[in-house]
């Protein structure tokens, strides 16, 4: 490792070091992106354990295929692509999302899970399990590309150009996916507004 501490280095430099076999450099990338990675996986699965497994698997795949990473792209775009593909593959494999309500989840946590659950916000408390299930089901009905574009925009706040890079498609196509997803959700969830 060079004299600079890993946390002071940019992604590009960390990737270069990791490609030379510096595992510590890659571990810093994990620290940097673990929360975003987890959140994206959670958007797709809505299940804490699945989100953890999928995001960790994405890091592992990125690490083992780091020699294929083209430095002209940004690391996080490349990494998000791996992660999104894993999440879509998870859905294709037929894993059914449980759509547990927050109440059910919190019960589970209270039963001895060492990982403390997030404190429910007033908004969450106001939402009934039924509404959450409806929203989950409506999202689940979206075609994979629409769902991906919508989640990356609506949940993660990525720009259209970033989403286009992750999905390896044109920006116009991303806009269409998002528009169609929103239209479908409006129809499915009309009763909520």
């Amino acid at each position, binding site marked *: 490792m060079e004299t600079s501490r890993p946390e002071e280095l940019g992604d590009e430099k960390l990737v270069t070091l990791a490609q030379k076999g510096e*595992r510590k450099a*890659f*571990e810093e990338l*994990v*620290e940097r992106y*673990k*929360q975003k990675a*987890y*959140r994206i996986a*959670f*958007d797709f699965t*809505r299940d*804490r354990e699945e*989100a*953890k497994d999928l995001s*960790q698997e994405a*890091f*592992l795949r990125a*690490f*083992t295929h780091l020699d294929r990473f083209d430095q002209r792209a940004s690391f996080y775009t490349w990494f998000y692509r791996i992660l999104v593909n894993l999440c879509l593959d998870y859905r294709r494999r037929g894993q059914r999302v449980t759509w547990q309500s927050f109440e059910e989840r919190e019960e589970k946590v209270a039963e001895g899970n*060492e*990982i*403390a*659950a*997030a404190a429910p*916000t007033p908004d*969450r408390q106001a*939402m009934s399990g039924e*509404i*959450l299930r409806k*929203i*989950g089901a*409506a*999202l689940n009905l979206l075609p994979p590309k629409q769902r991906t574009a919508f989640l990356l*925009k*609506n*949940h993660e706040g990525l*720009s*259209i150009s970033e989403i286009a890079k992750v999905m390896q498609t044109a920006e116009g196509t991303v*806009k*269409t996916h*998002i*528009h169609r997803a*929103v*239209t479908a*959700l*409006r129809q499915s*969830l009309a009763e*909520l*507004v």
Partner: protein
Amino acid sequence: MANMTPAQAACKEYEEDLVLYYYGEYSEKGRDRIQTHLKNCSSCSRFLDELRALLPLTVKIDEPSQPFWESYSREVRQKLAAAGEKTSWWEGIFSFLRPWRVPALATAMVFILALTLTLTKGTWRTRGDVPPKEETLLEVLPMAENLEFFKSMDFLDSLDLLEDMGESGVA
């Protein structure tokens, strides 16, 4: 209002732009166009209000606690270490096939081969190994010798002729 249908809450030509406007994805020109339109179109204003009410509801936030993240990092480090160990033995074998090494290895092989052939020229050659060009030469050589023979025969013929002429002249 143009292009309105009963199933749509917004003007058709503005719907996609309104969704992008909601997400802050617009150019300055596009923003002015939409804002001007919104001032005069209650349907599109309602549509935008609907998006503002509905879309945040679809976000389900999970905020795991610090122990979760500590455990997360620890697990990833263990998995990376295991992956590193798993790949190290075959990486060692195939490290020679890394992109920059392949041409270097090929060049070295060609050089060694050329050197070997140069230094051992003729020592390993058997009849079967003779190159086609040289093989042709070996076939032509006896023919050339024959040619010399026949040339000699011509010379002898000439001598015979001179003798005949001499005899006739003497006679």
